[in-house]
């Protein structure tokens, strides 16, 4: 099949950038969206043109690197990562518009590559547990009900891809932050720092310039890992409880 692409090209953070049109012929149904980009980039390299820069790593749908906003939706028409999106989701002759994630907190580095360091800084502010001493405990030392473990695991499946921010009309990072706060708030290991964690991570999220949550549910609908809005409600609870009852003044 033949595909017409409209891709965002931007030399660097300072460049204004703009769309450029490309025709890609000989696209197979079985190609992933990224493989289609590989084909195009090979052609560009052969023509001595600058290839289109995009983030990718595992190409197995587990790393969350491949950030592309395809035809108005993060990761395109399927609820998955861009590497797991296949060209059979499109029709011969389709025009596909590809843009970078758009958020003040995610500045464009080049073309489709954005800086998601804001997420790292949020994690650094509290998305971990401190274990300061002692040997490695036995795996089954701490009893955790299966249901709780399942819920915590569901939250922990967040790969930090940023599709929630890209999908949200406010560029809000609430789904990401709520998943990270939830996975630890539900487990015994996370209790020690539970309140301060919620306070610190929300504070960092606001400092990074993400918007607030309008509860539209676009993040949940576009999340490749199906992180649910229940996490956001839990974050609201965790944060309010922390603000009212923590020792931090």
């Amino acid at each position, binding site marked *: 099949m033949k595909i017409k692409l409209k891709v965002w090209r931007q030399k660097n953070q300072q460049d204004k950038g703009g769309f450029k049109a490309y025709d890609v012929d000989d696209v197979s149904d079985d190609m992933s969206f990224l493989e289609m980009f590989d084909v195009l980039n090979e052609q560009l390299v052969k023509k001595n043109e600058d290839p289109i820069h995009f983030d990718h790593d595992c190409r197995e749908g587990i790393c969350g690197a491949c950030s592309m906003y395809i035809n108005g939706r993060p990761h395109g028409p399927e609820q998955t990562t861009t590497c797991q999106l296949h060209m059979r989701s499109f029709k011969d002759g389709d025009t596909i518009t590809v843009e970078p994630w758009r958020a003040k907190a995610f500045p464009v580095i080049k073309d489709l590559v954005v800086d998601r360091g804001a997420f790292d800084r949020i994690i650094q502010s509290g998305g971990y547990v401190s274990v300061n001493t002692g040997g490695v405990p036995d795996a089954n030392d701490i009893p955790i009900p299966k249901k709780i473990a399942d819920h915590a695991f569901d939250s922990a499946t967040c790969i930090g891809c940023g599709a929630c921010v890209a999908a949200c009309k406010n*560029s809000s990072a609430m789904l990401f932050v709520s998943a990270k706060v939830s996975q630890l708030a539900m487990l015994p290991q996370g209790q020690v720092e539970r309140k301060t964690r919620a306070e610190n991570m929300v504070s960092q999220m606001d400092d990074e310039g993400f918007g607030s949550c309008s509860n539209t549910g676009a993040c949940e609908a576009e999340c490749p890992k199906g992180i649910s809005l229940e996490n956001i409600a839990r974050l609201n609870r965790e944060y309010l409880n922390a603000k009212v009852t923590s020792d931090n003044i």
Partner: protein
Amino acid sequence: MILLWNVPLVASDYYTFNQANHMSWFTNAMSSSIGKKVLMALTGLFLVTFLIVHLSGNLQLLLNDGGKAFNIYAKFMTTNPVIKATSYLLYATFIVHIVWALIITVGNKKARPTGYAVQPGNVSSTWSSKNMGLLGTIILVFLVIHLKQFWYEMHWGGIPTANYDGMEYNDLYAVVNVAFHELWYVVLYTISMMALMFHLNHGFKSAFQSLGANHPKYNPLIKGVGFIIAIVIPALFAAIPIIMYMK
């Protein structure tokens, strides 16, 4: 004993708290993105209770008593000290809900300085959830006209009076009756109530989410009650001018 206070009692005291600024913990909480949404939720839910009270009053317009019950009710609502005190809380709630909506919207717009070329449409979220500001603005425009027409007239306007059982009452019913026979006002009223319908359809359940109330046991109830409130309240409000216009 004094020394004990300085000893960290729990391990969390070792974990750095990152928010060293001049704000009190309360101001800090309320100025966070979550705090602002909590305020929107609380004020919004309070405004819903106001709508229910307002509607119960309005339904008396449909009684065939020449407006007696409505006028007596109107007098009670403007003179009873408890209601009067509550009304100041209500005005404040309206202002906070509106001003905070503006603050939040400006902040949200700043979070995405460059927009997308292709919009997602309504595939991943409902239209009303993305247009609460627009819906709210329609309701605000209506509110201003509505307040001028009835609330201002009732308090400071020269409106006719009626006598029931030797007592003098402002004949607000007559003022309403005139307004509800003007086609433009009935149309404006109906459109505004439709905006309210969409606003409540998202707002009611969204308020509970913002307050952290999301539980499989209660979600169906919140959704159901929200749907009924969003449909029934605006529909009954809109029915009154339409019925009176056709009378």
